[in-house]
């Protein structure tokens, strides 16, 4: 396309310089912070970080919630995507539109909407109390459940969209062919649909997992300081304690976990089915 490499390089140079100056350099500086004590390079900051029980709990909770959200999103996502793909074309367009609609609404607004639903005077509690199922309002907000629900609602559309496109790329008659060859619905799923849509599952899973791990607004509003996650902890360390070393450690943990999740999901996807 280009006459020579120099031309191509000249074209990307401005973008590269910009990205380097405002993104790469600060990130490298921040991350290197975590490996320094005085003048020497050590892993001391990481040892210190993980030796505190609060940090351990936050780390495990983040991992657990992100994994759970991913797993539940995959289950609900497959069911929803399969149903949507099999709709007549007109309905399909409309429902797909509805699925992506939440992605166009501000996450702050979306998350505050949950407070209207789950708060002490929210819809759910009002209903429970007036029906007599509960004597007093139940605490939903600032629990792991609230964060879980919020994250699931936030990221489910990404899973559904990934799976819809994966399912649509499947050969049209693969499912009926498997049925006629004697597969029950579970076997159709494990032997045909899953292997043929695993790329979509890996993409959707990676988006949902890293998204859940790095989400800030949802755990901040629905979990607050009672249900800290790595991202909210990071913000707290910086704003309240000016602790850039911990911030650096958390940042790297998040990056590493995002890559690890992607690798793991790919690994799972390419593992040959046991026969």
């Amino acid at each position, binding site marked *: 396309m280009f006459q020579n490499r120099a031309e191509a390089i000249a074209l990307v140079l401005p973008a590269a310089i910009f990205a380097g100056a405002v993104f790469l350099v600060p990130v490298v500086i921040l991350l290197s912070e975590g490996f320094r004590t005085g003048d020497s390079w050590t892993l001391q900051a990481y040892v210190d970080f993980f030796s505190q029980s609060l940090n351990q709990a936050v780390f495990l909770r983040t991992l657990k919630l992100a994994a759970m959200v991913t797993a539940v999103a995959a289950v609900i996502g497959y069911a929803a995507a399969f149903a949507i793909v099999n709709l007549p074309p007109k309905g399909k367009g409309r429902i797909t539109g509805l699925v992506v609609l939440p992605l166009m609404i501000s996450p702050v607004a979306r998350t505050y909407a949950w407070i209207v639903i789950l708060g002490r005077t929210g819809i759910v509690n009002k209903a429970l109390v007036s029906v007599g199922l509960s004597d007093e309002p139940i605490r939903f907000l600032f629990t792991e459940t609230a964060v879980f629900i919020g994250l699931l609602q936030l990221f489910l559309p990404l899973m559904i969209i990934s799976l819809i496109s994966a399912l649509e790329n499947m*050969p049209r*008659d693969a499912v*009926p*062919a*498997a049925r*006629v*060859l004697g597969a029950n619905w579970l*076997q159709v799923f494990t032997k045909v649909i899953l*292997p*043929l849509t695993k790329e979509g599952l890996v993409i959707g899973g990676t988006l949902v997992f890293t998204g859940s791990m790095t989400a800030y607004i949802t755990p901040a509003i629905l979990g607050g300081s009672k249900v800290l996650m790595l991202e909210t902890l990071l913000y707290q360390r910086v704003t309240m304690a000016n602790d850039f070393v911990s911030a650096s450690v958390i940042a790297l943990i998040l990056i590493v976990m995002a890559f690890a999740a992607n690798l793991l999901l790919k690994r799972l996807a390419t593992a040959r089915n046991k026969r």
Partner: protein
Amino acid sequence: MSDSRFLSLEKLTLSYGKNVAVPEMDLDIGKGELVALLGPSGCGKTTTMRAIAGLMEPSSGAIVLDGVNITRVPANKRPVGLVFQSYALFPHLNVYENVAFGLKLMGVRGAELDTRVNDGLKTVGLSNFASRKPAELSGGQQQRVSLARSMVMEPKVLLLDEPLSNLDARLRLEMRTELQRVQKESGVTMIFVTHDQVEALAMADRIIVMLDGKIEQIGTPEEIYNNPVSDFVADFVGFENVFERVDDKIKTANGDIAINGTIDPATKGLAWRPSMVTLGEGPFEGTVRGTSFAGGTREYLLDTPLGQIKAECAASLPAHDFGAVLNFDLPVAKAAQLARTGNL
């Protein structure tokens, strides 16, 4: 259950939402028959196949196979095989695994599995392709894998939806004989869909001609070819000159015109193949508007008072020029007498 009613459709109605694709179809198919389902695009051939395979729930009526009512039996529990027009091979599995797919689900394992898969591959001549992925095969090879995958299940009925339509002419001929051979050797009851009348005539023991979800005619290739019951079937099998009958006249664009010979009172229409038209003598005159050479014969398109007529004569006879005026006749004795008209 008798052998001639091995598979029966009883007032089977198939709909997509409010649209009825196939209304109240009655059909009996005998054990070991090779039946062709012939009809124009959209007449309900695929729909009927899918219903027999259990991929679509009938809105009413019943399907009985080998004495058992299978109308409500789910697809995975029916002893029915279906070869899809798209082949529908599993792209993530190699040829061997594709053919083994159904057998494994049946619980066949070990040496027996191996034997049956290899036998299946041998039948379709693909023993050397066992470890290839579907994407590495030609269309014809994929089609044969798909056939083997269904055959090894030893279904009571094997349905094939336009099995040859994606193949080139030569391979199509080859696969025709192949399919016939496999069917005769295994004795499986086979229904194949086609919209190519030549294919249906060449392969089938019996032909079902469908139109708009209804069966127009069922018969042996000879019956269909020689005695079409309706103008639609006649046109479909190559009677290119089709007329409605009014008393002892035929109805044309220029009014009713008398023809020679007596017509059976029950006859609603008359049809002639180009080869049945007498050319060179007779009461009618036509102007040559087109000619085409077809090897042994030469075809003429004539402008006549009856409308356009297609006639044919031996290519060895001297050719008539464009614009020449020829005499011709439509002899009633040769015509196919149609019991129904009004579908053209």
